[in-house]
């Protein structure tokens, strides 16, 4: 089965999201594919970035797709997502192989 990997890096703040928001939606939410959203190289995730991830995951879900977030050892982004409870509604994994297994399960 096909899957899509979307890799983000850098600061997902107001300016960062202005640059990638539309692209993120089009890559994650247009086709009902399993999507791994790779945040391992994201240095900063602001609430505006979380909003965009939630919207994309919802749209994907409505089309029958599924999203898994890949974190690696990114502790600040992990703490940010856990603080907002997003880890309970979009699965988060720390290892690339596990991400693939989970999103295809």
């Amino acid at each position, binding site marked *: 089965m096909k899957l899509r990997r979307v890799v983000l890096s850098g*600061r997902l*703040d*107001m*300016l960062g999201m*202005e640059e990638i928001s539309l692209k993120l939606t089009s890559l994650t939410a247009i086709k009902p594919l399993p999507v791994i959203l790779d945040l391992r190289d994201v240095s*900063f*995730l*602001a*609430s*505006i970035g*979380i*909003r965009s991830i*939630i*919207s994309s*995951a*919802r749209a994907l*879900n409505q089309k029958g797709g599924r999203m898994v977030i890949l974190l690696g050892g990114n*502790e*600040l982004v992990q*703490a*940010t997502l856990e*603080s*907002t*409870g*997003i880890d*309970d*509604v*979009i699965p988060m994994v720390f290892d690339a192989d596990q991400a693939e297994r989970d999103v295809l399960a």
Partner: protein
Amino acid sequence: MAPPPPETLNLLLQPNPLELRRCSDWLQASCQRLDVPAASSGKLDLCLNEVLANLIDHGGARASSCPVQLTLERADGDDGGLATLTISDAGRPFDPLSFSSEPLPRTLQEAEPGGLGLLLVNRFVDECSYRREGDRNVLKLGIRWLKSP
């Protein structure tokens, strides 16, 4: 002899999206100068970004024409340190401590895309105080860390 007063660092900035990164660079450099651990400075950076983003979006016309003043200071206790960031702005009166957060979502459909910024601030800081001083909001955010053994 009394302990030396805590070192403080200051920045003035215009509240607009283009200033957010300069402000973050200043905070990171200042935290490094005051030996604030990276994990604590990362959280403080996120809180500052959320407070300023909120001010830019909802602070009103006066907020966008008056500079924001930032002050960072470090204090040390027996068990560890405390970094306190003071944010003074001329926006509409707004006490972020009065913000009541919704319960955390249980499903993707329940997850509200809005209101996450202040939730993050409330979850990340160890100390928080607000006062209205003349025509300015003065918000203090503190993050603690333990001394390494």
